């Protein structure tokens, strides 16, 4: 679908307007399905948006694991000469996880308990991925128009921060203050 995607495109900016559209879509899906959590991930497992009350670190780890599962199932599909496994369902005693790809770029993840029907979640998630697909198209079009993703000033500040954080490198570690963001 995104064959025209520039291989040099190393980062993707999701603007405020698109974020709002994503948020509204996830809100609607949350209400309609009665899910516990809903997440939208990129293919690398980074969380674009989420709904529910899980603490952030848990979401980050879940995102990495789900993206790993999806990437793994995609490789399985390739070996089995399938186009793709578009949907993953994981079922536990209390909770179920439904994952569906949005044009092979993003992953929509719905975590729900046994009060919600899997069939309903499937249908509503399918509808949501269609809306999200529209948002994804806009994001990609807008990214093509951008020559640089972030300003030079922000990039320089980020590089300076990395130097500051890792400035001690492999030297003595005893005198370091743990309150400051200067780890090694």
């Amino acid at each position, binding site marked *: 679908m995104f064959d025209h995607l520039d291989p040099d495109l190393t980062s993707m900016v999701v603007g405020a307007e698109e974020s709002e559209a994503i948020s509204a879509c996830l809100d609607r899906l949350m209400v309609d399905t009665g899910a516990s959590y809903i997440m939208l991930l990129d293919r690398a497992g980074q969380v674009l948006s989420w709904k529910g009350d899980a603490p952030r670190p848990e979401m980050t780890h879940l995102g990495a694991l789900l993206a790993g599962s999806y990437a793994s199932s995609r490789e399985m599909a390739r070996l089995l000469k399938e186009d793709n496994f578009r949907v993953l369902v994981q079922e536990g005693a209390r909770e179920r996880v439904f994952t569906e790809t949005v044009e092979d770029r993003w992953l929509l993840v719905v975590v729900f308990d046994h009060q919600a029907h899997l069939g309903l979640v499937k249908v509503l998630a399918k509808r949501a991925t269609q809306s999200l697909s529209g948002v994804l198209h806009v994001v990609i079009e807008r990214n093509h128009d951008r020559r640089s993703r972030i300003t030079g000033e922000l990039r320089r500040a980020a590089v300076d921060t990395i130097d500051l954080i890792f400035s001690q490198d492999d030297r003595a570690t005893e005198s370091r203050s743990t309150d400051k963001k200067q*780890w090694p």
Partner: protein
Amino acid sequence: MALINVAAKEIHGKIVYYGPGLCGKTTNLQVIHGRIPQNGRSDLLSIATETERTLFFDFLPLDLGKVHGFTIRFHLYTVPGQILYERTRVAVLNGADGVVFVADAQRDRLADNLQSLRELAHNLTNQGKRLTEFPMVMQYNKMDLPTALPTPVLDRYLNTIKVPRFEAVAVQGRGVFETLRAISKLVVNKL
């Protein structure tokens, strides 16, 4: 592909540690995890076999704090090094913004390093990356061992595209952060 979320003011990047089995990829992440101040530390997630070899990946989210109002987060991954898990490495490499190739500096591992490096080049090319432009650094690990090859020899065989390279003894923490700093800067400069 790095993600810049304007509304949430977040920048996310993915860095993958790649290399042959037992070269020290997981050790790198363990050292980094061990030195993160406890108040900002997330768990190091490891999906390993019963014998503590990486089965799928290790994962460590790294929060660099706020820069100009943007929170910068790197997600560090390792791949499983064993030959058997080639397709798993492809899956983990998916969407990477930068790669650290960890080479085992010992003489008898040179062939394994070369094979792993060739596989990495193949996988990156298949994912549409241009090798000469893709953020990558190399780490020569286990340089303290008597069987370690000298750096110029490793350079000649492994670093033909002349990416930044660092000597390391990861198990003692040497060279770990120097490597991380270099790849982080390369990734940020590509945003």
